[in-house]
Protein backbone atom coordinates (compact mmCIF):
# COMPACT_ATOMS: atom_id res chain seq x y z
CA UNK A 1 0.00 0.00 0.00
CA UNK A 2 2.78 2.35 0.97
CA UNK A 3 4.63 1.46 -2.23
CA UNK A 4 1.51 2.20 -4.27
CA UNK A 5 1.26 5.56 -2.55
CA UNK A 6 4.91 6.31 -3.36
CA UNK A 7 4.34 5.24 -6.95
CA UNK A 8 1.37 7.59 -7.36
CA UNK A 9 3.28 10.40 -5.68
CA UNK A 10 6.26 9.90 -7.95
CA UNK A 11 4.17 9.99 -11.11
CA UNK A 12 1.48 12.37 -9.82
CA UNK A 13 2.05 14.66 -12.85
CA UNK A 14 1.13 11.90 -15.30
CA UNK A 15 -1.79 10.70 -13.20
CA UNK A 16 -3.19 14.20 -12.84
CA UNK A 17 -2.83 14.70 -16.60
CA UNK A 18 -4.68 11.47 -17.36
CA UNK A 19 -7.36 12.29 -14.79
CA UNK A 20 -8.05 15.76 -16.21
CA UNK A 21 -8.07 14.47 -19.79
CA UNK A 22 -10.58 11.76 -18.84
CA UNK A 23 -12.79 14.40 -17.28
CA UNK A 24 -12.59 16.53 -20.46
CA UNK A 25 -13.47 13.61 -22.69
CA UNK A 26 -16.47 12.66 -20.56
CA UNK A 27 -17.80 16.20 -21.05
CA UNK A 28 -16.95 16.22 -24.78
CA UNK A 29 -18.73 12.93 -25.46
CA UNK A 30 -21.81 13.91 -23.49
CA UNK A 31 -22.04 17.48 -24.72
CA UNK A 32 -23.75 16.66 -27.98
CA UNK A 33 -26.70 15.04 -26.31
CA UNK A 34 -29.50 17.55 -26.46
CA UNK A 35 -30.89 19.05 -23.27
CA UNK A 36 -28.14 17.73 -21.03
CA UNK A 37 -27.89 20.79 -18.86
CA UNK A 38 -24.22 21.32 -18.24
CA UNK A 39 -23.06 24.57 -16.75
CA UNK A 40 -20.41 24.77 -19.49
CA UNK A 41 -22.48 26.81 -21.90
CA UNK A 42 -23.13 30.46 -22.60
CA UNK A 43 -26.56 30.58 -21.02
CA UNK A 44 -25.22 30.11 -17.49
CA UNK A 45 -25.25 33.00 -15.05
CA UNK A 46 -21.61 34.11 -15.32
CA UNK A 47 -21.16 33.82 -19.09
CA UNK A 48 -24.60 35.23 -19.80
CA UNK A 49 -24.10 38.39 -17.81
CA UNK A 50 -20.52 38.92 -19.01
CA UNK A 51 -21.48 38.49 -22.65
CA UNK A 52 -24.50 40.72 -22.18
CA UNK A 53 -22.30 43.51 -20.83
CA UNK A 54 -19.77 43.05 -23.64
CA UNK A 55 -22.48 43.08 -26.30
CA UNK A 56 -23.61 46.52 -25.12
CA UNK A 57 -20.19 47.76 -26.10
CA UNK A 58 -20.13 45.89 -29.43
CA UNK A 59 -23.62 46.97 -30.39
CA UNK A 60 -22.46 50.60 -30.60
CA UNK A 61 -20.15 49.66 -33.41
CA UNK A 62 -22.86 48.47 -35.78
CA UNK A 63 -25.71 50.81 -34.94
CA UNK A 64 -25.83 52.00 -38.56
CA UNK A 65 -26.41 48.51 -39.88
CA UNK A 66 -28.97 47.70 -37.19
CA UNK A 67 -30.91 50.85 -38.02
CA UNK A 68 -30.86 50.04 -41.69
CA UNK A 69 -32.13 46.50 -41.10
CA UNK A 70 -34.90 47.71 -38.83
CA UNK A 71 -36.09 50.33 -41.29
CA UNK A 72 -36.05 47.77 -44.12
CA UNK A 73 -38.09 45.42 -42.00
CA UNK A 74 -40.49 48.24 -41.18
CA UNK A 75 -40.93 49.05 -44.84
CA UNK A 76 -41.67 45.40 -45.62
CA UNK A 77 -44.24 45.19 -42.86
CA UNK A 78 -45.88 48.43 -44.02
CA UNK A 79 -46.18 46.98 -47.49
CA UNK A 80 -47.74 43.77 -46.15
CA UNK A 81 -50.24 45.73 -44.11
CA UNK A 82 -51.24 47.77 -47.16
CA UNK A 83 -51.56 44.66 -49.30
CA UNK A 84 -53.69 42.92 -46.71
CA UNK A 85 -56.15 45.79 -46.43
CA UNK A 86 -57.57 44.86 -49.80
CA UNK A 87 -58.21 41.32 -48.66
CA UNK A 88 -59.87 42.15 -45.38
CA UNK A 89 -63.17 42.97 -47.07
CA UNK A 90 -63.57 39.76 -48.99
CA UNK A 91 -62.44 36.58 -47.35
CA UNK A 92 -62.77 34.61 -50.56
CA UNK A 93 -60.10 36.52 -52.44
CA UNK A 94 -57.53 35.77 -49.76
CA UNK A 95 -55.29 33.10 -51.27
CA UNK A 96 -54.29 31.96 -47.81
CA UNK A 97 -57.84 31.47 -46.62
CA UNK A 98 -58.24 28.19 -44.82
CA UNK A 99 -54.51 27.76 -44.48
CA UNK A 100 -54.05 29.55 -41.21
CA UNK A 101 -51.25 27.40 -39.84
CA UNK A 102 -48.70 30.13 -40.53
CA UNK A 103 -50.51 32.64 -38.37
CA UNK A 104 -50.53 30.61 -35.22
CA UNK A 105 -47.24 31.85 -33.88
CA UNK A 106 -46.15 34.09 -31.09
CA UNK A 107 -42.90 35.89 -31.76
CA UNK A 108 -40.63 36.65 -28.82
CA UNK A 109 -38.11 39.37 -29.73
CA UNK A 110 -34.56 38.87 -28.42
CA UNK A 111 -31.10 40.31 -28.85
CA UNK A 112 -28.07 38.23 -29.83
CA UNK A 113 -25.38 38.84 -27.21
CA UNK A 114 -22.76 36.42 -28.49
CA UNK A 115 -22.36 34.80 -31.86
CA UNK A 116 -19.78 32.44 -33.30
CA UNK A 117 -19.26 31.57 -36.94
CA UNK A 118 -15.63 30.41 -36.78
CA UNK A 119 -16.29 26.86 -35.57
CA UNK A 120 -17.90 23.85 -37.18
CA UNK A 121 -20.55 23.65 -34.47
CA UNK A 122 -21.60 27.24 -34.03
CA UNK A 123 -23.97 28.59 -31.42
CA UNK A 124 -25.24 31.99 -30.43
CA UNK A 125 -26.70 33.35 -27.22
CA UNK A 126 -29.88 35.36 -26.65
CA UNK A 127 -30.63 37.76 -23.81
CA UNK A 128 -33.99 36.12 -23.09
CA UNK A 129 -34.71 32.85 -21.33
CA UNK A 130 -37.40 30.78 -19.64
CA UNK A 131 -38.62 33.89 -17.79
CA UNK A 132 -39.68 35.27 -21.15
CA UNK A 133 -41.33 32.08 -22.36
CA UNK A 134 -38.49 30.50 -24.32
CA UNK A 135 -38.19 26.72 -24.19
CA UNK A 136 -35.77 24.32 -25.95
CA UNK A 137 -36.54 23.38 -29.57
CA UNK A 138 -38.17 26.66 -30.49
CA UNK A 139 -37.20 28.10 -33.87
CA UNK A 140 -35.22 31.34 -34.13
CA UNK A 141 -35.67 33.67 -37.12
CA UNK A 142 -34.14 36.98 -38.10
CA UNK A 143 -36.12 39.54 -40.11
CA UNK A 144 -34.46 38.18 -43.25
CA UNK A 145 -34.91 34.47 -42.56
CA UNK A 146 -34.19 31.42 -40.48
CA UNK A 147 -31.12 31.39 -38.21
CA UNK A 148 -31.29 28.60 -35.63
CA UNK A 149 -32.98 26.39 -33.05
CA UNK A 150 -32.97 26.95 -29.26
CA UNK A 151 -30.87 24.36 -27.43
CA UNK A 152 -30.49 25.31 -23.80
CA UNK A 153 -32.42 27.76 -21.68
CA UNK A 154 -31.65 29.35 -18.35
CA UNK A 155 -33.83 31.88 -16.60
CA UNK A 156 -32.54 34.93 -18.45
CA UNK A 157 -30.49 33.58 -21.35
CA UNK A 158 -30.69 30.92 -23.99
CA UNK A 159 -28.18 29.14 -26.20
CA UNK A 160 -29.19 28.63 -29.82
CA UNK A 161 -27.78 26.11 -32.31
CA UNK A 162 -26.89 28.29 -35.29
CA UNK A 163 -27.84 27.23 -38.81
CA UNK A 164 -24.05 27.30 -39.28
CA UNK A 165 -23.67 24.07 -37.33
CA UNK A 166 -22.70 20.95 -39.25
CA UNK A 167 -24.94 18.87 -36.96
CA UNK A 168 -28.14 20.75 -37.79
CA UNK A 169 -30.57 19.64 -40.51
CA UNK A 170 -33.58 21.64 -41.61
CA UNK A 171 -36.40 20.64 -43.91
CA UNK A 172 -36.36 22.95 -46.92
CA UNK A 173 -38.64 23.40 -49.89
CA UNK A 174 -37.97 25.08 -53.20
CA UNK A 175 -40.47 27.93 -53.26
CA UNK A 176 -41.53 27.53 -56.89
CA UNK A 177 -41.99 23.83 -57.40
CA UNK A 178 -42.72 22.31 -53.99
CA UNK A 179 -39.83 19.84 -54.04
CA UNK A 180 -38.52 19.26 -50.53
CA UNK A 181 -35.05 18.36 -49.32
CA UNK A 182 -32.68 18.80 -46.41
CA UNK A 183 -30.73 22.00 -45.78
CA UNK A 184 -27.30 21.50 -44.23
CA UNK A 185 -24.10 23.49 -43.68
CA UNK A 186 -20.87 21.91 -44.84
CA UNK A 187 -18.68 24.01 -42.58
CA UNK A 188 -16.61 25.89 -45.15
CA UNK A 189 -18.21 29.27 -45.80
CA UNK A 190 -20.56 31.08 -43.46
CA UNK A 191 -22.56 32.47 -46.39
CA UNK A 192 -23.33 29.17 -48.13
CA UNK A 193 -25.67 26.30 -47.34
CA UNK A 194 -26.46 23.12 -49.27
CA UNK A 195 -29.83 21.69 -50.20
CA UNK A 196 -29.70 17.92 -50.44
CA UNK A 197 -31.90 15.11 -51.78
CA UNK A 198 -33.57 17.08 -54.57
CA UNK A 199 -34.03 14.51 -57.36
CA UNK A 200 -32.64 15.28 -60.83
CA UNK A 201 -36.09 15.18 -62.46
CA UNK A 202 -37.04 18.32 -60.54
CA UNK A 203 -36.88 21.61 -62.39
CA UNK A 204 -34.44 23.64 -60.29
CA UNK A 205 -33.48 27.15 -61.27
CA UNK A 206 -30.76 29.42 -60.00
CA UNK A 207 -32.38 32.32 -58.20
CA UNK A 208 -35.37 30.56 -56.69
CA UNK A 209 -35.92 30.83 -52.97
CA UNK A 210 -35.67 27.98 -50.50
CA UNK A 211 -38.09 28.15 -47.58
CA UNK A 212 -38.90 25.91 -44.60
CA UNK A 213 -41.09 22.98 -45.49
CA UNK A 214 -43.11 23.05 -42.28
CA UNK A 215 -42.82 19.28 -41.88
CA UNK A 216 -41.23 19.66 -38.46
CA UNK A 217 -42.95 21.35 -35.57
CA UNK A 218 -40.00 23.68 -34.92
CA UNK A 219 -40.57 26.14 -37.75
CA UNK A 220 -43.79 27.17 -39.40
CA UNK A 221 -43.70 26.76 -43.16
CA UNK A 222 -42.59 29.39 -45.67
CA UNK A 223 -39.83 30.96 -43.59
CA UNK A 224 -37.11 32.10 -45.98
CA UNK A 225 -33.76 30.26 -45.74
CA UNK A 226 -31.83 31.37 -48.80
CA UNK A 227 -31.57 31.71 -52.54
CA UNK A 228 -30.22 29.04 -54.90
CA UNK A 229 -26.92 30.18 -56.41
CA UNK A 230 -25.65 27.05 -58.11
CA UNK A 231 -27.12 23.78 -59.32
CA UNK A 232 -24.88 20.90 -60.35
CA UNK A 233 -25.73 17.50 -61.72
CA UNK A 234 -23.35 14.84 -60.48
CA UNK A 235 -22.85 12.02 -62.97
CA UNK A 236 -24.27 8.80 -61.61
CA UNK A 237 -26.21 10.44 -58.81
CA UNK A 238 -29.98 10.69 -58.62
CA UNK A 239 -29.74 13.99 -56.76
CA UNK A 240 -28.60 17.50 -57.58
CA UNK A 241 -25.84 19.27 -55.72
CA UNK A 242 -27.51 22.57 -54.87
CA UNK A 243 -25.80 25.47 -53.16
CA UNK A 244 -27.71 28.36 -51.63
CA UNK A 245 -26.72 31.73 -50.29
CA UNK A 246 -28.13 32.41 -46.85
CA UNK A 247 -30.65 35.22 -46.83
CA UNK A 248 -29.32 36.38 -43.44
CA UNK A 249 -25.86 37.76 -42.90
CA UNK A 250 -24.72 35.62 -39.97
CA UNK A 251 -21.71 37.84 -39.37
CA UNK A 252 -23.83 40.64 -38.02
CA UNK A 253 -26.73 39.02 -36.26
CA UNK A 254 -28.41 41.50 -33.91
CA UNK A 255 -32.11 41.23 -33.27
CA UNK A 256 -34.02 38.00 -33.78
CA UNK A 257 -37.43 36.49 -33.01
CA UNK A 258 -38.06 33.21 -31.24
CA UNK A 259 -41.10 31.50 -32.74
CA UNK A 260 -43.52 29.91 -30.38
CA UNK A 261 -45.56 27.51 -32.49
CA UNK A 262 -48.86 27.42 -30.67
CA UNK A 263 -50.07 24.14 -32.12
CA UNK A 264 -46.71 22.43 -31.47
CA UNK A 265 -47.90 20.15 -28.67
CA UNK A 266 -51.01 19.20 -30.57
CA UNK A 267 -49.04 18.39 -33.70
CA UNK A 268 -46.38 16.44 -31.78
CA UNK A 269 -49.01 14.43 -29.92
CA UNK A 270 -50.92 13.64 -33.06
CA UNK A 271 -47.77 12.53 -34.84
CA UNK A 272 -46.52 10.36 -32.00
CA UNK A 273 -49.95 8.73 -31.80
CA UNK A 274 -50.01 7.92 -35.46
CA UNK A 275 -46.44 6.61 -35.38
CA UNK A 276 -47.40 4.31 -32.53
CA UNK A 277 -50.00 2.54 -34.65
Amino acid sequence: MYKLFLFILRFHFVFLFLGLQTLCFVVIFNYNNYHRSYFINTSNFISGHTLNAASRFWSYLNLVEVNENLSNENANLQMQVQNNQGYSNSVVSNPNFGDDSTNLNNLIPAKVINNSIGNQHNYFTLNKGSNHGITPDMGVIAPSGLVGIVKQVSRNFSTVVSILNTRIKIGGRIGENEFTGTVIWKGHDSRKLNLETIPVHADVRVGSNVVTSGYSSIFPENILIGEITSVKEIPGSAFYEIELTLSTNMQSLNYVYVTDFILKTEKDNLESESYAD
Partner: protein
Amino acid sequence: MLTKVLRSNLIRFLGLLFFQVIILNEIHVHVPIIPYFYVLFIILMPFGISPALSLILAFALGLSVDMFSNTGAIHAAAAVLVAFVRPYTLKAMKPVMGYEDLVRPGMRKLGFSWFVMYSALLIILHHFALYFLEVFTFTEVLFTLSRIMGSSLITLFLVLIFEFLFQSKNN
Protein backbone atom coordinates in the same frame (compact mmCIF):
# COMPACT_ATOMS: atom_id res chain seq x y z
CA MET B 1 9.30 38.79 -6.09
CA LEU B 2 6.87 35.93 -5.67
CA THR B 3 3.87 38.21 -5.30
CA LYS B 4 4.94 40.06 -8.43
CA VAL B 5 5.06 36.82 -10.44
CA LEU B 6 1.74 35.79 -8.95
CA ARG B 7 0.18 39.12 -9.82
CA SER B 8 1.40 39.25 -13.40
CA ASN B 9 0.20 35.67 -14.00
CA LEU B 10 -3.20 36.39 -12.50
CA ILE B 11 -3.58 39.47 -14.71
CA ARG B 12 -2.49 37.44 -17.74
CA PHE B 13 -4.98 34.67 -16.91
CA LEU B 14 -7.99 36.99 -16.66
CA GLY B 15 -6.84 39.38 -19.38
CA LEU B 16 -6.29 36.63 -21.94
CA LEU B 17 -9.57 34.91 -21.02
CA PHE B 18 -11.61 38.05 -21.61
CA PHE B 19 -9.62 39.11 -24.67
CA GLN B 20 -10.34 35.67 -26.14
CA VAL B 21 -14.04 35.41 -25.42
CA ILE B 22 -15.06 39.04 -25.86
CA ILE B 23 -12.84 40.18 -28.71
CA LEU B 24 -11.21 37.32 -30.67
CA ASN B 25 -14.30 35.05 -30.64
CA GLU B 26 -16.41 37.96 -31.87
CA ILE B 27 -14.32 38.86 -34.90
CA HIS B 28 -16.21 37.22 -37.73
CA VAL B 29 -14.71 36.25 -41.06
CA HIS B 30 -16.28 33.98 -43.64
CA VAL B 31 -13.75 31.19 -43.27
CA PRO B 32 -14.08 29.17 -40.06
CA ILE B 33 -10.84 30.25 -38.38
CA ILE B 34 -10.36 31.70 -34.88
CA PRO B 35 -6.94 32.39 -33.34
CA TYR B 36 -6.74 30.99 -29.80
CA PHE B 37 -4.40 33.51 -28.27
CA TYR B 38 -5.18 32.50 -24.65
CA VAL B 39 -2.63 29.69 -25.04
CA LEU B 40 -0.03 32.42 -24.36
CA PHE B 41 -0.80 32.01 -20.65
CA ILE B 42 0.54 28.44 -20.73
CA ILE B 43 3.50 29.44 -22.92
CA LEU B 44 4.58 32.15 -20.44
CA MET B 45 4.01 30.27 -17.18
CA PRO B 46 7.05 30.70 -14.89
CA PHE B 47 9.86 28.13 -14.95
CA GLY B 48 9.45 27.50 -11.22
CA ILE B 49 5.77 26.53 -11.32
CA SER B 50 4.97 23.08 -10.01
CA PRO B 51 3.95 20.79 -12.90
CA ALA B 52 0.74 19.76 -11.16
CA LEU B 53 -0.30 23.36 -10.62
CA SER B 54 0.37 24.16 -14.27
CA LEU B 55 -2.01 21.38 -15.32
CA ILE B 56 -4.73 22.65 -13.01
CA LEU B 57 -4.36 26.26 -14.17
CA ALA B 58 -4.43 25.19 -17.83
CA PHE B 59 -7.56 23.15 -17.14
CA ALA B 60 -9.24 26.10 -15.42
CA LEU B 61 -8.41 28.48 -18.27
CA GLY B 62 -9.50 26.03 -20.96
CA LEU B 63 -12.77 25.24 -19.22
CA SER B 64 -13.48 28.95 -18.78
CA VAL B 65 -13.03 29.50 -22.52
CA ASP B 66 -15.34 26.52 -23.16
CA MET B 67 -17.93 28.08 -20.89
CA PHE B 68 -18.05 31.12 -23.15
CA SER B 69 -18.04 29.34 -26.49
CA ASN B 70 -20.30 26.24 -26.22
CA THR B 71 -17.55 23.82 -27.16
CA GLY B 72 -17.95 21.09 -24.53
CA ALA B 73 -14.50 20.74 -22.97
CA ILE B 74 -12.25 20.77 -26.03
CA HIS B 75 -10.37 23.89 -24.94
CA ALA B 76 -9.75 22.34 -21.51
CA ALA B 77 -8.45 19.13 -23.12
CA ALA B 78 -6.12 20.98 -25.53
CA ALA B 79 -4.82 23.34 -22.82
CA VAL B 80 -4.10 20.48 -20.42
CA LEU B 81 -2.23 18.66 -23.18
CA VAL B 82 -0.03 21.72 -23.83
CA ALA B 83 0.68 22.16 -20.11
CA PHE B 84 1.63 18.49 -19.93
CA VAL B 85 4.04 18.69 -22.86
CA ARG B 86 5.59 22.03 -21.84
CA PRO B 87 8.08 20.79 -19.19
CA TYR B 88 9.45 18.19 -21.64
CA THR B 89 9.72 20.82 -24.39
CA LEU B 90 11.59 23.17 -22.06
CA LYS B 91 13.94 20.35 -21.07
CA ALA B 92 14.59 19.39 -24.69
CA MET B 93 15.19 22.98 -25.76
CA LYS B 94 17.39 23.90 -22.78
CA PRO B 95 20.17 26.26 -23.88
CA VAL B 96 23.78 25.74 -22.74
CA MET B 97 23.54 28.16 -19.82
CA GLY B 98 20.17 26.75 -18.71
CA TYR B 99 17.28 28.91 -17.53
CA GLU B 100 18.97 29.85 -14.26
CA ASP B 101 18.17 33.47 -13.48
CA LEU B 102 15.04 33.62 -15.62
CA VAL B 103 11.49 33.87 -14.30
CA ARG B 104 9.58 32.88 -17.43
CA PRO B 105 10.34 31.98 -21.05
CA GLY B 106 11.00 35.15 -23.01
CA MET B 107 12.56 36.57 -26.10
CA ARG B 108 15.08 38.95 -24.56
CA LYS B 109 17.55 36.54 -22.96
CA LEU B 110 16.76 33.34 -24.82
CA GLY B 111 16.71 34.88 -28.26
CA PHE B 112 14.17 35.49 -30.98
CA SER B 113 14.58 32.18 -32.80
CA TRP B 114 14.44 30.17 -29.57
CA PHE B 115 11.22 31.89 -28.57
CA VAL B 116 9.62 31.48 -32.01
CA MET B 117 10.50 27.76 -32.07
CA TYR B 118 9.24 27.18 -28.54
CA SER B 119 5.94 29.06 -28.90
CA ALA B 120 5.25 27.79 -32.43
CA LEU B 121 5.63 24.21 -31.18
CA LEU B 122 3.16 24.67 -28.33
CA ILE B 123 0.71 26.73 -30.43
CA ILE B 124 0.61 24.16 -33.24
CA LEU B 125 0.16 21.33 -30.74
CA HIS B 126 -2.66 23.22 -29.04
CA HIS B 127 -4.47 24.15 -32.26
CA PHE B 128 -3.95 20.67 -33.72
CA ALA B 129 -5.57 19.00 -30.70
CA LEU B 130 -8.29 21.62 -30.57
CA TYR B 131 -9.42 21.54 -34.18
CA PHE B 132 -9.36 17.75 -34.42
CA LEU B 133 -11.34 17.45 -31.18
CA GLU B 134 -13.81 19.92 -32.64
CA VAL B 135 -14.47 18.14 -35.93
CA PHE B 136 -13.85 14.70 -34.39
CA THR B 137 -13.39 13.08 -37.78
CA PHE B 138 -10.63 12.49 -40.29
CA THR B 139 -12.79 13.24 -43.31
CA GLU B 140 -11.69 16.48 -44.95
CA VAL B 141 -8.29 16.27 -43.22
CA LEU B 142 -6.79 18.80 -45.61
CA PHE B 143 -9.46 21.35 -44.80
CA THR B 144 -8.91 20.86 -41.05
CA LEU B 145 -5.13 21.06 -41.48
CA SER B 146 -5.43 24.31 -43.41
CA ARG B 147 -7.63 25.74 -40.63
CA ILE B 148 -5.00 24.65 -38.09
CA MET B 149 -2.17 26.28 -40.06
CA GLY B 150 -4.13 29.49 -40.62
CA SER B 151 -5.14 30.06 -37.03
CA SER B 152 -1.76 28.90 -35.64
CA LEU B 153 -0.01 31.52 -37.78
CA ILE B 154 -2.31 34.29 -36.57
CA THR B 155 -1.88 33.16 -32.95
CA LEU B 156 1.92 33.04 -33.31
CA PHE B 157 1.86 36.53 -34.79
CA LEU B 158 -0.19 37.82 -31.84
CA VAL B 159 2.13 36.08 -29.35
CA LEU B 160 5.20 37.71 -30.93
CA ILE B 161 3.55 41.14 -30.87
CA PHE B 162 2.68 40.63 -27.21
CA GLU B 163 6.25 39.60 -26.41
CA PHE B 164 7.68 42.64 -28.23
CA LEU B 165 5.37 44.98 -26.35
CA PHE B 166 5.58 43.52 -22.87
CA GLN B 167 9.04 42.02 -22.51
CA SER B 168 10.46 42.75 -19.08
CA LYS B 169 14.09 43.25 -18.10
CA ASN B 170 14.67 39.92 -16.41
CA ASN B 171 13.30 37.75 -19.19
